[in-house]
């Protein structure tokens, strides 16, 4: 279950980051954000909600703690990826 929460929160955070105009443009080397940006944003929020629901299944509350900690972890990793990936794919 923790692996599932790990994967879902990671995907959610990555999609939310790509759903932001600035990062979308940087990662895909585009001048204008396309319709895909909206899809990323919406699916990011949906996955975030889904992962929260799954984390809530843990009656001890540890799932929520893991959920918040994992969001921070993925947030950091995704930010570094956004900072360095466009340089590699250019």
């Amino acid at each position, binding site marked *: 279950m*923790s692996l599932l929460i790990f994967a879902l929160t990671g995907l959610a955070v990555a999609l939310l980051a790509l759903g932001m105009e600035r990062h979308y443009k940087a990662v895909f080397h585009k001048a204008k954000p396309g319709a895909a940006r909206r899809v990323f944003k919406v699916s990011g929020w949906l996955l975030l909600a889904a992962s929260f629901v799954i984390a809530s299944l843990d009656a*001890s*509350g540890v799932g929520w703690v*893991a959920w918040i900690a994992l969001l*921070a972890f993925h*947030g*950091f990793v995704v930010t570094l990826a956004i900072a360095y990936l466009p340089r590699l794919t250019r």
Partner: protein
Amino acid sequence: MKKTIRGSLTWLHTWCGLLLGWLLYAIFVTGTASYYKHEITQWAHPELRFTAASRIDALEQGYREVLRAEPDAASIYIVLPDDRSPGLFLGWETPEGAYLTRTVDACTAKVQARDSRAGEFFYRFHFELQLPYPWGRWIACFAAVFMLVALITGIVAHRRFFKDFFTFRPGKPGGRSWLDFHNLAGVIALPFYLMISYTALILFLDMFMPWARLAVEPPAVQTAQMEAGGRTGDSAVSTAPAKPERAEWRPMAEQAEKAWGPGRLRSVYAAGLAAPGGTVSFSPANDDGISVGARAGMTFDAATGVLIPGEAPARGIVTRLHDVLYGLHMIHFAGAFLRSIFFFLGLLGTALVATGLVLWTVKRRPRQEALHGPGRLGFGHALVERLNIAVIAGFPASLATFFWANRLLPLGLENRGDREVTIVFIAWGIAAIHPWVRSIPRAWKEQLWTGGALLCLLPLVDAVTGPYLGRALLEGNRTYLGFLVVVFGLGLMLGYAAHRMGRARRGGKPVTVETA
């Protein structure tokens, strides 16, 4: 003060952060290490090995060993091993009132671990700062309050909290990248920092808000209790009473394990053994939920071995909330996976404090050079830069010497455990002097390289000082090897920082200092 509220709060963030930053950095480093307190201990006590011995057998062995060492022990405290650390902790009080401890193997209780404070050193430093009671705790308390202040003012000071989400622009001049990283580290793990500093205050609640307890419990009672060494009742009177009977512990332990399930028995505390009315209390591991007080212990009569039916202690909402907040700080509930994530967040917090301290100097450097000429700094500014080096680079390097001392000091040395700690402080003293005899960029590089080398070479030191690394490899002891891998990784990080430091400064003018 500044004209706007944001200006005032930014000012508060800057100066609060600077003055408390060095302290918070040391607290963050040792606190992060404390997440792996037991893993550090199992490496620092390599004589003890993980065994398949049952917990009740281990307890029985430990109890016998205590009685062999001190047949008239007044109280006995035993902590059982778990899958993170194989040692069996024995502590007992002699009839004269001295408290002795020993960490032994769980199989025979005969093999004694080397004299080292091991993970306990990092854990104690985290909130006592190696200072005498209660000063260290008061200072740590103070640091926790100001961390909360720094966090809240930091949120206000950060102008584009949401717009800059997921933003890091490396290689930008003028401190932009440092600020980006500081913001990133701060924003991304903000819930973690708020939780950790707030729960720290809850842990210290009794120290700086003692009035609630004083109101409930009149001070006279407390003083009397303190004078009796924390004991209450007539059992504390030591007028050589008839030696009471001692029931076997095994049936009690079996009863406790039956109630809680196998492997959940954590520690045993037997008190008042010198007189009739002694008790043996069994405590379970409270690691299956966030709260530290979810499961109550079981107390038996020391003479008869009969369970004393304790009325369940009244646990109101405040007590339960307190236990949950306490548990969040200690994360006993975290398994290996979640623990590693928290370790990462601890490192991120360390980086947050470090980048904040560096940022203070990076932002002020151009003004200093305009004032004092190129490459020259005022005394106050240079002092901050040098303290930054001694703390940010010097403290981790000093802690690395703890592990070296653990393997290199002769085993029979008197007060060996204390000397390990002394070596850390000697190393830190050298790190504090070093930036005054070297130029600032060189001191950064040299201290970071030193720290990186000390950590990366630790497996080598381990391999040549004893059979333990080879044995761990043969047995596939993941806890032992994992410790060395993490230490090696941290060494690589320091080395990378040293390498970047060299690149950033290459071609720059050497910095001299005008002591004005």
